[in-house]
């Protein structure tokens, strides 16, 4: 460590830390602090309004004995996995196709991207309309002559969660496509040219050079998609209201219903703690591996 030759240099060394300090403080208070408060509430007896007492594990016991919670947890797994995987795959393939020097690329790209601009409430309302058996696709196809065509997933207890996947993928896959397209364009042309000269075919080049080069893109996409999947509250409320019954409930809507509508804040907090645990177990190892490498790169 060099000695500071002047107060100015000392400030200079601390300046970067000072600059990120506000964000750091905000994160500590408004994210981690609130997480801690939530944790406390999950160990409290809070009903309609927060009460900061100690009630042991009773809320967690109630949570695990609650049938609806398990439906919600399972739904998040199904929805989350399908949503993320389909968005990534669809996004990547669409990006690859768009990368083929297409005419009207701008227009097509805009068409793929615009759903992201819509609020989940708008998306949910539109898709609710489209998937309604009496008013939407089922009716349309039947009136075209296919009398026995059925597409009532929206009101079917077992299939409803998949309609959420459809609407969610529609909204977010365009964004993944944009990310992948950017990533594809960012791969060094020279490497590709060299491989072509060596006689490699395009699919081979894609597989061995380009797609691995998209790792940082997948990182961003994965983070964003997971974030969206967990937050998918507005979409579900607008599309199915959690129904039929509670067949499309997810932890986010479960937590909201119990905390705010049913005056059982303690139980709702326990639910969100479980959500947080699950997310952290998935995200932290991933972050660790990705960020660690980056540390060594630059």
């Amino acid at each position: 460590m060099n000695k500071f030759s002047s107060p100015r240099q000392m400030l200079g060394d601390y300046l970067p830390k000072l600059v990120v300090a506000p964000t750091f403080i905000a994160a500590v208070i408004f994210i981690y602090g609130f997480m801690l408060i939530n944790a406390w509430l999950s160990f409290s007896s809070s009903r309609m309004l927060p009460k900061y007492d100690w009630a042991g594990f009773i809320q967690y016991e109630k949570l695990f004995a609650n049938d609806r919670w398990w439906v919600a947890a399972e739904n998040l797994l199904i929805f989350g996995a399908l949503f993320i995987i389909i968005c990534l795959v669809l996004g990547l393939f669409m990006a690859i196709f768009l990368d083929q020097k297409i005419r009207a690329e701008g227009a097509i790209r805009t068409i793929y991207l615009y759903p992201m601009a819509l609020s989940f409430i708008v998306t949910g309302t539109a898709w609710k309309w489209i998937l309604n058996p009496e008013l939407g696709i089922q009716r349309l196809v039947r009136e075209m002559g296919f009398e026995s065509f059925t597409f009532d997933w929206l009101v079917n207890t077992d299939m409803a969660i998949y309609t959420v996947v459809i609407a969610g993928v529609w909204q977010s896959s365009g964004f993944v496509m944009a990310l992948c397209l950017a990533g594809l364009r960012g791969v060094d042309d020279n490497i590709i040219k060299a491989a072509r000269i060596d006689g490699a075919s395009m699919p081979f080049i894609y597989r061995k050079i380009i797609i691995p080069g998209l790792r940082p893109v997948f990182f961003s996409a994965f983070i964003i998609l997971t974030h969206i999947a967990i937050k998918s509250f507005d979409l579900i409320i607008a599309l199915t209201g959690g129904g039929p019954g509670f067949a499309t409930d997810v932890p986010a809507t479960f937590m909201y219903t119990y905390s705010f509508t049913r005056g059982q804040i303690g139980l709702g907090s326990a639910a969100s703690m479980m959500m947080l645990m699950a997310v952290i177990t998935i995200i932290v190892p991933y972050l660790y591996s990705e960020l660690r490498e980056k540390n060594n790169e630059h």
Partner: protein
Amino acid sequence: MKVSKLVLSVSLALGLSTVAQAAEVEVLHWWTSGGEAKSVAELKKMLEARGHQWKDFAVAGGAGESAMTVLKSRVVSGNPPTAAQIKGPSIQEWGGEGVLANLDGIASKEGWDQLLPSVISDGMKYKGKYVAVPVNVHRVNWMWTNPEVFKKAGATVPTTWKEFFIAADKIKAAGMTAVAHGGQPWQDATTFETVVLGSAGADFYTKAFVELDPKTLNSPKMIEALKIFHRIKGYTDSGSPGRDWNLATAMVINGDAGMQFMGDWAKGEFTAAGKVPGKDYLCVAAPGTTTDYTFNVDSFVMFDLDDKEQRKGQNDLASTILSPAFQEVFNLNKGSIPARLNLSMDKFDDCAKVSAKDFVSTAKSNTLLPSMAHGMSTYSSTQGAIYDTITEFYNSDSITAEAAAKKLAKAVAAAK
């Protein structure tokens, strides 16, 4: 009492809280549509005639889920509105938090104890002191029928559940839908509580939904009621899941369906379509409930505020709500009957007149019951637990009534 616009904009610019303005009454509600919004507009007009300013705080959404979230945040942040649309046992929950205002002053001045039936005024009090004011009385155990449909099918309007299935079969055979239903949890619950009342009686209903007695919730009579309830599904159409209640009413209006189990707010739909009670549609008590009355009372609670001007505003708001003029105009628009006793029912239609009469008579015979489905008999946590069990049972074809009854008792106990 108008605050100068300059002060208002300066304080807004400084980012200060805008709530503490003299005589500005902020009212949280979720009446955002046609008829209801018109009624709220009447309240606003009458309140402003008394010199106050109405600050509207409308948050739409079903039975006020979003509104309740917002309300709780506002209370937690130390910034509650002046009044909020809260009903049933929730009033007691809020009272327990110690944030409600004491309205005994205006209550004794205007003699509320004499103006309101005791079953209602009790609900408006917390620990014996008035904290809320009722707006209306809805009857929930109505059955709306289309006489044309019955005639075409050769069926008679049922008065017991046994008769119901006979009539339903006839209507179904004639190619029409017997029961117009909207597959949403609250509608499922509304139908369910009516079935319980009609098949097992008022005492059983009270034991189950007010006292939450587990032995009643899981009992042979409950299993019987659950079976009837599930059987009704076979008489609804395939479009019923997720359908909004007013679209189900439209089916009855248009002659596509014969019956709907719905509270008296359905009347507004008939009226809007130009239908005449007694001729185009009939309002009858649901099967087995002719001498019973399940009620749903909308009310406004007042929050405990320091500002003297706002307290005066609250008193004036409460007084306006119970005034004969407002009670009449609001309930004419909404399809319910006044909460205030002894008002002239001349302007009201026949269904409302029957409702008013039955309201008084069932109060005397102890068959005036709070509606479970509409949050009048239990806390929202218990109500929610019942909703979950009932709606799951209704939507699934693989849960037996015995299993459902067991789940019901367990869920209610867990929600306590």
